[in-house]
């Protein structure tokens, strides 16, 4: 399946992916309305500092530990993509603790939130990759299979 | 002041036609004149002409110079020059017939000449090169004089008018040639000058051409590097010089010359067998500026043969046919039918495909 891959060699640490992510999932028409004066809650985060930076988001693992640990059945797979049913989520945040990448985060409404490859928002494909100025984040099919 | 051809660029549309006897039998000019009649629409009365090969058998070792003079003064200047440069064997007026369709004729003379051996030796050139230089000199340096034919045992006859009238004017029925080429001109500019009519000739080479070449100035500026002077600014002139340069000076074969002038596309060359590919790549690399683009169909006349060639996209019509030992080439099939109603094996050569016809060895 197509996944989001990050190449730290080209990551500039500009953090634009975080803003593009937050905007994509806001449902707002424009970024100013979506993000101005509000806390930014992206599902991708730029880690590291100085010369080495790296954007981290859900790996959509083959056997996701977050799904195994989900007590309410909110986390599930849809054709390889790990998705969350926020109606079902009880906000126990077990998944946040379990994810080895720190890619599942507590959301503003109590439910957990995570990258769903922008398949469930108006973007249609990951906004982080589309907006990355240096192609450090790419959304593509690769032979290798992640964990 | 009247602007003469040569002082501006004059592209033309045209009709061409040619016939050759592979047995070297001599044909009068009537048949070739006939061929131009059905193509009347392709000319506009501003130029017509013919070239005949084998017409001066009695002077076959001498260069026959055909000249136009604007007046007696030009003739005198030119003759003074000729006397110093060459041995003049015979000088005479070219016989013409007064007809209403052809007017304003210049003085039209022919000279049978030969270069002085001693001059050739001291200049270290052969007789062809020497005559070519004489022609270039007259055409660029002697005002009012113009050499329009300069080969051996051949001659060009041309004028402002429709080709069938030009043929009648020059009494072509009185000449016998083993090959004829003809041209009717549709220049886009007036005045078409007598010198600007076709065929265009240098030494034995004559060219009749239909088309307007888009590569003109690239070709002209290249060929002028090798001592040619394009005084008429016509496509036919530059093609004649290219043919002379490649065939005479560089010693290329007719086929090789055709693949310089109408080079195959690189993608065609790449599909060819290795040896052929190497040779064609070489020719295109060595003579890039002699590639002729834009529409043309030409018939190149030379001693003992004809070569017909279309541009590589075949943007002008040209057909060939045969009957017995005769081969016919023309812009239109109708022209061939006018020469030989029973002609057969009609063929439309592909773009860039040369059709070469030679008189049998020893027959001319």
């Amino acid at each position, binding site marked *: 399946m197509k996944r989001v891959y990050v190449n730290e*060699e080209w990551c500039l640490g500009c953090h634009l992916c975080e*803003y593009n992510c937050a905007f994509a999932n806001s449902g707002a028409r424009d970024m100013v309305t979506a*993000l101005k004066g509000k806390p930014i809650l992206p599902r991708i985060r730029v880690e590291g500092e100085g010369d080495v930076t790296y954007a981290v988001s859900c790996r959509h693992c083959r056997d996701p530990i977050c799904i195994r640990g989900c007590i309410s059945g909110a986390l599930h797979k849809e054709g390889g993509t790990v998705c969350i049913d926020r109606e079902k989520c009880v906000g126990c945040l077990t998944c946040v603790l379990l994810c080895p990448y720190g890619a599942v985060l507590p959301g503003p409404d109590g439910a957990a939130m995570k990258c769903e490859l922008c398949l469930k928002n108006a973007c249609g494909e990951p906004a982080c990759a589309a907006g990355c100025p*240096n192609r450090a984040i790419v959304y593509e099919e690769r032979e290798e299979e992640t964990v | 002041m009247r602007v003469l051809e040569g002082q501006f660029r004059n592209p033309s549309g045209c009709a061409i036609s040619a016939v050759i006897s592979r047995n070297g039998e001599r044909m009068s000019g009537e048949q070739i004149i006939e061929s131009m009649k059905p193509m009347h629409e392709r000319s506009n009365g501003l130029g017509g002409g013919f070239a005949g090969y084998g017409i001066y058998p009695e002077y076959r070792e001498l260069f026959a110079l055909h000249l136009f003079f604007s007046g007696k003064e030009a003739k005198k200047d030119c003759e003074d020059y000729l006397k110093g440069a060459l041995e003049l064997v015979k000088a005479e007026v070219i016989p013409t017939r007064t007809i209403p369709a052809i007017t304003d004729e210049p003085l039209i003379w022919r000279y049978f000449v030969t270069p002085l051996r001693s001059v050739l030796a001291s200049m270290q050139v052969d007789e062809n090169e020497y005559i070519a230089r004489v022609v270039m000199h007259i055409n660029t340096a002697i005002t009012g004089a113009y050499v329009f034919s300069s080969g051996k045992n051949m001659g060009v006859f041309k004028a402002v008018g429709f080709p069938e009238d030009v043929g009648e004017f020059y009494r072509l029925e009185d000449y016998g040639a083993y090959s004829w080429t003809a041209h009717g001109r549709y220049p886009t500019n007036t005045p078409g000058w007598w010198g600007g009519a076709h065929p265009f000739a240098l030494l034995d080479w004559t060219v009749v051409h239909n*088309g307007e070449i888009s590569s003109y100035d690239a070709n002209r500026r290249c060929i002028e590097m090798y001592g040619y002077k394009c005084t008429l600014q016509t496509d036919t002139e530059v093609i004649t010089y290219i043919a002379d340069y490649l065939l005479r000076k560089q010693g290329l074969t007719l086929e090789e010359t055709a693949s310089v002038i109408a080079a195959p596309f690189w993608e065609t060359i790449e599909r060819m067998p290795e040896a052929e590919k190497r040779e064609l790549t070489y020719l*295109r*690399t*060595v003579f*890039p500026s002699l590639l002729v*683009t834009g529409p043309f169909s030409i018939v190149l006349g030379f001693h003992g043969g004809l070569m017909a060639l279309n541009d590589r996209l075949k943007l002008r019509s040209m057909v060939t046919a045969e009957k017995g030992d005769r081969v016919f080439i023309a812009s239109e099939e109708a022209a061939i039918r006018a020469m030989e109603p029973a002609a057969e094996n009609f063929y439309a050569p592909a773009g860039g495909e040369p059709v070469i016809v030679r008189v049998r060895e020893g027959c001319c």
Partner: protein
Amino acid sequence: MSGINFLFPEFEVVRNDDRCIRCRVCERQCANEVHFYDAARDRVFSDESKCVNCQRCVSLCPTRALKIVRSDCRLRENANWDSDTIREVYKQAESGGVLLSSMGNPKPLPVYWDKLLINASQVTNPSIDPLREPMETRVFLGKKPKTLERDGNGKLKTELTPQLELDIPVMFSAMSYGSISYNAHASLARAATALGTCYNTGEGGLHEDFYKYGPNTIVQVASGRFGVHEDFLQAGAAIEIKMGQGAKPGIGGHLPGAKVGPDVSRTRMIPEGSDAISPAPHHDIYSIEDLRQLVWSLKEATGHVKPVIVKVAAVHNIAAIASGIARSGADIIAIDGFRGGTGAAPTRIRDHVGIPIELALASVDARLREEGIRDRVSLVAGGSIRSSADVVKAVALGADACYIATAAVLALGCHLCRTCQSGKCNWGIATQRPDLAKRLNPDIGSQRLINLMTAWKREIMELMGGMGINSIEALRGNRLMLRGVGLNETELRILGVSHAGE
């Protein structure tokens, strides 16, 4: 020196606070440290005195909250003492130094390309549609033989002196590793390979990673001989001797030690941190016969299989110079006009020395033809070829091919801010700072170069087709395809073209 700053900032950073979402990408991306975030007031501010108007922040701002405008604070300028002239006096009075700047001559001198118009077929001759018919742009650069030879069987001997084969008549001209980044070189090398053309190492040697692009590389030998060794010479498809550069004729080059890091040091074969100073002349070439010796030495060193290019700046006597070079054994002459770019040049030289490439090219082509030696060399024209139309006009004037560099770096992201000499290129091109150089991902860079050249190639084919020409050879030197507008008799004579309407 004094406490007074005579120079007000040239640009203003205009931030639309209604749109600014405080993402601070501008702050993170500006190597000149123009932008800064004040947490106490939760606002982003700017110090426009540091701004060079490279537009990096403008391009990356996700809400388009930024624009950079020329400051309307004006000096009391007049037609003689314009703002730039006055500022330059202030700068020199402050520093006591030679003014430095970069990229090409910005002065309003005539751009002859814009005064030449191209022909098209109507009625007497059909135009050719490149979508339906073959349209050839391949060129071979190199010497053509004067006479042909045949073997015993009458077959043509097809051995030629070395030729450089290009699929398009455009190459990337010399920019050294050092003056531009590793990633910029990688982009150029990869694009040249994909396009079937060449890029040029400039006088900086060839990084070991790029030897694999050798068949599409022109290796340069300049007056400092930086990075020149046998493997380097063997690596390229052609060797270029750089005698001069359009942006700075008559002077050498200077790569500041700050840019000579470990990689550049190894590639140039000079100590880390040392200034790389190329002398003004080649100290083994004080005349044309010396050039001949270098040409033949390089040929000898590489087994006579590579064409040798001699690159010269377009100066007053260029026709005679080119004629001398044509007889020196060089296979190709590259002429660089006075609008050519550079990573750093003294401002006075950049703006006042040299002549336009259009006139230089036209007079060189005409002179070589007059002397009957045009076939002995190919001509490459550079020094501000900005578009496919410029390429077509250059070829019609007589060039075999063109060199582009400014257009190429523009494709890579350059915004012509003309401060390459600072080494703080925000676009990752003219810099050796790793954090900045990584901003140019060669995957993107090479693709943008390929896109640009593909687009130019299509346009060249369209223009040729309109003229009824289906091979670039038939366009070369075909000056009838050009007409001048608004040019005087002398200019027309030198260009060898008629005026429009004639």
